[in-house]
């Protein structure tokens, strides 16, 4: 039922009745029901006050959704992947498989006359194998598991350690 506050405005009734046309010959009760139904339609439109209310709710809902989405997205942000570990994975398992290279013996440790013959032979391969060992070990320089704290631009003074 249409409440009094929702009743159509009086100035709308005449145009309504005019536009009913042949329907104006309807029985009074049916005619009244039809007018009520038509009049009920504008009653469904919100008033200015209700429209403001709806917009406030919508804005609040949108804000809430944004907060929820933000929080959700914050938690769903993918965990960063270490690119250096990926290099190890993609080139691996060589870097992981390789045992640390043996420390090269100091010359004085190999000075025993009995081992001189073997030392001479070993010298042929010692240098290239040392280079290969460094190459195999090299990926470890990317994979040190220790806290890293990048130095500011310029970094520590490494000029004194220049090898050549």
């Amino acid at each position, binding site marked *: 039922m249409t409440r009094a506050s929702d009743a159509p405005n009086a100035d709308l009734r005449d145009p309504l009745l005019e536009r009913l046309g042949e329907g104006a010959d309807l029985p009074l009760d049916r005619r009244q029901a039809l007018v009520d139904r038509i009049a009920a339609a504008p009653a469904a439109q919100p008033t200015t006050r209700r429209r403001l209310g709806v917009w406030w709710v919508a804005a609040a809902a949108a804000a809430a959704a944004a907060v929820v989405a933000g929080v959700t997205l914050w938690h769903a*942000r*993918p*965990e*960063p*992947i*270490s*690119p*250096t*570990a*990926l*290099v*190890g*994975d*993609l*080139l*691996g*398992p*060589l870097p*992981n*498989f*390789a*045992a640390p*290279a043996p420390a*090269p*013996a*100091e010359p004085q440790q190999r000075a025993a006359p009995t081992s001189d013959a073997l030392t*001479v*032979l070993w010298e*042929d*391969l*010692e*240098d*290239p*194998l*040392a*280079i290969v*060992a*460094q*190459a*195999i070990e*090299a990926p*470890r*320089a*990317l*994979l*040190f598991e*220790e806290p*890293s*704290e*990048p*130095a500011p*631009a*310029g*970094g*520590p003074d*490494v000029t004194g*350690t*220049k*090898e*050549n």
Partner: protein
Amino acid sequence: MRHTQLFVMTAILALAATAARADDGLQMADLVPAQAVGLVEIEDAAGLRQDLLESPFWNALQKTEAARQWNASQRYAESQQRLEEFLGRLEMKKEEALRTYLGGKCALVLLPSGDPKKPYGVFLTEATNSNAERLIKAVGGLEVDRHHDVAIWEVQKEKHVDRMAFAGGVLMLTRPRADELQQVIDVAVGSGAALGNEGHFAKAVDGLPGGWRVRAYAAKTPPRKSPGAVALYPQGDDRVHAEWRIVSGAGEVGPNRPVPLHGPACLPDSAVAAVATCFHPEAIWEKVQAKLADRADGEERIRKAKMFVRGWFPGHPMEGILAGFGPEAAGALVKGEDGGAPGLVGMARLTATGRPVAHAFKDGLAAKAMIFGALGRKGEKPVVINVREETHGNASMVIIEAPEVLTKILGDWANDIGLTVAVADDWLIVGTTPSGVKRTIDTAAGNGASLADAMKAAGERVPTEPVTRWGVLRPAEGADIVLSWAEKLLGRQRVEQAERLTNVAELMDLVKRVLWQRTDEPEVIHGTADMQAVE
């Protein structure tokens, strides 16, 4: 064991090489700081990896215990998970990602950190700008800095920070501990000296032939502490050729002066490991004297050294002894005949004046053994030493045996073993088994297949030009010897050593052949090696 691991890892790297050739485009050395202590360059690492995974060597390696442990490890599982996550974010299949990011040139540069064991490492890989951005986005990189207007991106992990940059057509990755990334960017943008322009780098790499797939450079090669480089080349799917150049400095050639080597043609084909070398006794003696002369008691030591040497060649002066041998010597580990004991054989080439000197050594050794045997019979536990003379072909031999002493250690091999000295036409030959020495005498006389014949039949090159040294290892054939030792140790209940030897034999079985050659040049040692995997 460490050396075995190193050898296996070298073989793994080497055998993965394929036939692609390095082009003359982007040169990683031009992007690397001049102060780098090491540089490892790889051409098409993706292809290298694929070839490795498809190689029979890799399949064989997967059956080893070490591989099983790695595949079952937590670290392996984590790496697989990380890769899958990364590929998902890239929206690429693994092969595509590998081709995109490791299909060109890549390099790992080592920069000095003050701790030689922990150099700074920066990985460089050829990439387009868009692919670099795609990777940086996929790993969650955040721009944190700029250097020379090059953006620096960062990924923070619990225990470390990764940083990335793109410049000069190269994506750079590092776990910075200092300003290593900035050092590389400096060179990439032309603001720093490049390793590629350094003379010591050029001296090490310029003589290496093109076409390498992996080239490793070290600014200080231990123990020489001079620059050197090793390059790996393809030789089909199961062979690889390696070449290296080590900067030696002037004046070191003397005792290592290259000569044409005859040893490979004189050693028998039953050798599982062998080496032939230049042998310049006078140059060696000069070097020894120079070394001893630096000591306070140098004169006395030189006098005693001369007396010691002359004692092995009774009746000959030092000058005659030095002039009697050279310019070549050789040695080998030979398989035993019909399951018999393996033997060591050493041989020194005789000069025109060398035969009487060699005979003096042989006869003097026989006399010493006889004296020792006579003394040994008088103790509570008498030691029986048999000394006998034989001739074999044109060679005269002395054989010294003590089977009773050796039986406890070597079992039935003891009967095969005897210190044997032979003077043949051109060689003084010393061996631990009479059969090994006899076979060497035959081979040197042209009767029977030689090691050189076996190598040529296998498609390997035996040098005819002067070289300093040439050697061959045939690990797969030597594995039987190691296993035989393991059995004998098991018999003596030294299980742990036996197991270790068995593991070594397992690894040896994966490599068929390794040949190497060294040629000393005035300022550089040039080496080559060829490896053949199991077929």
